[in-house]
């Protein structure tokens, strides 16, 4: 039963890759066939946000009990989240090339937000590596993580809704849910979200166990 979610994630991702390329999609101007990228680009970002949220959760926990364990988990989930940012940016960049005509634009608040988010988590790792005392590191890193997460969310959740954006769902653009995402696409999109989030959790768990084993090995 413990491994059920791993099997589920693999099945769901395989299903979305195969059926995502085969199922019928609505024919829309500009988007055309690239609308299938919704199945890959958006869930990967959801997985990243999930990992960052997990990192926040463990950071808050590490201020309370079992500081070292929770701190290690906070670090691993931040690393996993940052790892998911790479395919997220690549899929988005390629998609942008075919729809907006450019790989990267500074006009879009979500793209800027993502860039800042990556900078924030890189700064978080630099901060971690600059502190040698383990116990002290847990608290300082947790404080920075919580503060940075709130600031980042203001940036990527609130600001884009006030300004013009090329992304759907912001600045007067309708979200996918409004009319593009028909029932056929939902059949792939929602499983894809669940699948990628579970998959990211799997990576996170493997990394946590690896760190734990390394620590045990060091102690011996």
């Amino acid at each position, binding site marked *: 039963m413990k491994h059920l979610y791993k099997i589920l994630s693999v099945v769901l991702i395989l299903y979305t890759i195969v059926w995502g390329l085969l199922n019928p999609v609505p024919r829309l101007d500009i988007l055309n066939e690239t609308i299938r990228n919704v199945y890959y680009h958006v869930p990967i970002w959801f997985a990243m946000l999930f990992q960052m949220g997990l990192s926040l959760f463990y950071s808050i926990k590490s*201020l309370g009990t079992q500081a070292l364990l929770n701190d290690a988990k906070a670090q691993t989930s931040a690393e996993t989240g940052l790892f998911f940012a790479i395919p997220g940016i690549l899929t988005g960049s390629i998609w942008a090339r075919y729809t907006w005509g450019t790989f990267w634009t500074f006009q879009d*608040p979500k793209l*800027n937000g993502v860039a*800042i988010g990556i*900078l*924030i988590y890189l*700064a978080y790792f*630099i*901060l971690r590596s*600059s*502190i040698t005392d383990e116990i*002290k590191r847990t*608290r*300082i890193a*947790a*404080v*920075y993580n*919580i*503060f*940075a997460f*709130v*600031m*980042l969310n*203001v*940036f990527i959740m*609130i*600001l884009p809704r*006030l*300004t013009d954006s090329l992304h759907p769902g912001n600045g007067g653009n309708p979200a996918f849910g409004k009319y593009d995402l028909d029932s056929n696409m939902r059949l792939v999109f929602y499983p894809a979200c669940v699948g990628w989030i579970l998959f990211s959790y799997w990576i996170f768990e493997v990394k946590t166990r690896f760190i734990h084993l390394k620590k045990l090995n060091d102690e011996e």
Partner: protein
Amino acid sequence: MRGGYLLAPVKSNWYNPFYYLYASIMLLSLIKKEFRLEFRQKTTLGGILVYIIGTVFVSALCFKGKVDKPTWNALFWVILLFSSITISGKSFLKEQSGQALFNYLYYKPTQFILSKMLYNMGFMLVLSSITLFFYTWFIKNEIENVSLFITVLCLASTGFAGVLSLMSAIAAKAQGHFALMSILSFPVLMPLLTLVIRVSKQAVDGLAWSVSYPFLGILIALNVIMLMLAILLFPYLWQD
């Protein structure tokens, strides 16, 4: 061990009015201490003034008065961003280790961060108005909606000062140098900065107040959120 209030003559109950009196007296004394530390060394204060005037003068020489509105706006905020990092950034770095123990025993951590933040906010308000004065004098005055611009300037300088105070505390605890301070604060300040640039552009263009209300609301909310986060999180930084 939570520290704080070693010699407090009152019981620290939330319903005790004398406790609040004592707390506010302690807060005022801390802010007074900040002032004294700053004005004891006239060189730092003069240094900051020279820094601001120098930066504005250099950019005036570089642009030679040929600036369009967006550039004028962006340049102003970049200058202010860097001067605020130099000013508020060192607020915790100048605390000495022996003093830290004293502070730990005699003050509450929330009070300590509040005093730093309030002091830095006040200081930043003064310095940002000085920057604006020299900037409009040396380069030119492009602002059409002055009252809106000054409101944004106030909210932005309090926001910058608040964020930078907390970042300075983190950097000081990590025994980091000044570089760590800027690495930590740049990405965190970015949301505030983009928001501020957007609203101040509206002020420069002379748009009506009603256009900027939602942005000003978010700016105020950001200030409040930041203060609350600092008060909540600082006690964890404080204990050693």
